[in-house]
């Protein structure tokens, strides 16, 4: 039997000044997994998390934690562990005092508090700093204290709001790995808010892409990247070339689409002839033939190179078609060198395997 998800939201709505910051959000986070809410600034990620914590009261909808409805339960009885973006350590308490706070609020016996604080600090490798004040700690250390403080009370779920945003790149990556390992080891159900897509893809079991207060797509990192269902997701996660056009031919469960600017692509679609479609095409799917125009048929197009940008591991090639329409290709560099012949002005044939054409939903707008 499938257990109920540890965090469940059903039709949750929150409006500020008549504008729906969260507009009917429903999802579940399975026991022991990490789900990331990813989306552009202002799309409502933090508001969703704060409603789960109880810091914001939803206008409509239901929230349950570990199967218990909590919509009307006040913050301090929800037993959530929350990590704030700026860590929010208590400035007047030392590290030990910060970690002990939640235990003291729960009336845990003094001797047990001391032991649990030491264990929690050992968990985040800070057992030697129990006597320090928060302002005497580095950003990374503060974050560990905040994590220990949230975990020591054995919360039902862990909520992380942009937990690594304030750290520099190196430290951020180290803390990401560490947090993930800790989460796995404790098996704690976690919801993370981020606007860093790389962070979401590397740390999560599932990613929910939000936009304008709604969830646009919820899927595993690979599915989100490889099969985005909307033009927004295809453009927000990584980059995509978009081809917009009409179905001109049907054959079984496949169809031929001709884009408005003349590229013909084959897609798996049940759409009828004449219907409009949008196809997303990842830049790394595009192969470049320097021999010039050789073949004809779908999924290929003649272009000239507009710009070549070397990125170390990859080279970004900005192409232009006869009518000036852009197309971006990304090629992996062999031995760190740019492919010979990739120079601005050169004529190249761009082509790609037809399974890389993804039909995506257009904006309703």
């Amino acid at each position, binding site marked *: 039997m499938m257990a109920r998800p540890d965090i469940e939201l059903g039709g949750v709505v929150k409006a500020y000044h008549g504008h729906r910051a969260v507009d009917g959000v429903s999802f579940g986070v399975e026991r022991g997994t990490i789900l990331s809410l990813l989306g552009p600034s202002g799309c409502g990620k933090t508001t969703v998390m704060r409603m789960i914590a109880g810091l914001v009261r939803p206008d409509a909808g239901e929230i349950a934690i570990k199967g218990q409805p909590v919509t009307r339960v006040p913050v301090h009885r929800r037993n959530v*562990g929350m990590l704030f973006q700026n860590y929010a350590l*208590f400035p007047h308490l030392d590290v030990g005092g910060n970690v002990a*706070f939640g235990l003291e609020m729960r009336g845990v016996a003094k001797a047990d508090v001391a032991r649990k604080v030491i264990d929690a600090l050992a968990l985040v490798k800070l057992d030697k700093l129990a006597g320090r004040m928060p302002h005497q700690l580095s950003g990374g250390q503060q974050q560990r204290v905040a994590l220990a403080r*949230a975990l020591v009370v054995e919360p039902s779920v862990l909520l992380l709001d942009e937990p690594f945003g304030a750290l520099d790149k190196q430290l951020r990556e180290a803390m990401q790995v560490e947090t993930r390992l800790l989460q796995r080891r404790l098996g704690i159900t976690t919801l993370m808010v981020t606007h860093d897509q790389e962070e979401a893809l590397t740390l999560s079991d599932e990613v929910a892409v939000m936009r304008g207060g709604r969830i646009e797509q919820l899927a595993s990192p690979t599915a989100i990247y490889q099969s985005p269902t909307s033009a927004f997701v295809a453009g927000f996660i990584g980059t995509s070339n978009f081809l917009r056009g009409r179905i001109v031919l049907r054959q079984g469960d496949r169809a031929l689409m001709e884009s408005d600017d003349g590229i013909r692509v084959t897609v798996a679609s049940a759409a009828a002839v004449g219907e409009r479609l949008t196809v997303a095409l990842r830049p790394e799917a595009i192969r470049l033939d320097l021999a010039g125009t050789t073949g004809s048929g779908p999924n290929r197009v003649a272009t000239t190179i507009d710009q070549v940008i070397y990125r170390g591991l990859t080279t970004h090639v900005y192409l232009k078609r006869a009518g000036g329409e852009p197309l971006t290709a990304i090629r992996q560099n062999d031995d760190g060198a740019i492919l010979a012949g990739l120079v601005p002005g050169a004529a190249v044939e761009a082509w790609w395997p037809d399974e890389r054409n993804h039909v995506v939903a257009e904006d309703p707008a």
Partner: protein
Amino acid sequence: MENRLGAAALPVYLAAGLISLFLLVPLLLPIALSVSDTPFVVFPPQGFTLRWYVAVLGERDFTDSLTFSLILSSLAALGAMVLGTPTAIGLTRHAFPGRDLIRSLVLSPLVFPSLVTGIALLRFFSSIGSHDALVNLVIGHVLVTVPYVVRTVSASLIMLDPAIEEAARTLGASRWRTFWHVTRPQIVPGLVAGGIFAFVTSFDNYAISMWLFDAENVPLPLTMFSLISRMFDPGIAAIASLMILLSLVLVLVVERVTGLQKAMSL
């Protein structure tokens, strides 16, 4: 801190010295005069004696009045702290219609002439039949000192990150325990500074007290005024010196608790 003034150091020190002198002379003068071993106030002071202090401390009018003022100002400061703290929390933490108007009203005694406030209070108290001078004085002094507490506590609250209180809430603290264990320790310095400002302002107040005192309840500034007009020996300088000493002690306390600059801000 390193000295970065370089060649400009001398004129800067000179100017700073002169300004300090200008500020300190009026304060140091009574102290010098108060130890003069002469029957009248003379300048320059001659000899050295502490007998004027002894005399002043034996003067019933002075000691009664000092005791009364200490009680009055303590009660006023306490009242200002008790009323000012929730007011500051309400004004900084909650958005409600008319907030700016209420803030202006609460802070208005800072700019409103207290002489007028005093008359108004006198009329008010007599119309409601409130004849206890101490009660009337405490109410009047709380009215004019509460803005100091509201300002210093608001300043501490604005500097307190709301996420810290939210963190406490998620860790299992109710609203009240969050206030007690997290908010209160953060605003204590502002509260103490506001309380001391309130005390000093009340202790120094003349304009309100002159309308509300009676023969049994005479605040110190009123007594000093009447003493000056009938006392010609250095005893009056001794009284002034004692006042300066008290203020100095309080300023040092504020400095120790919050740092004067921080307490004065906002």
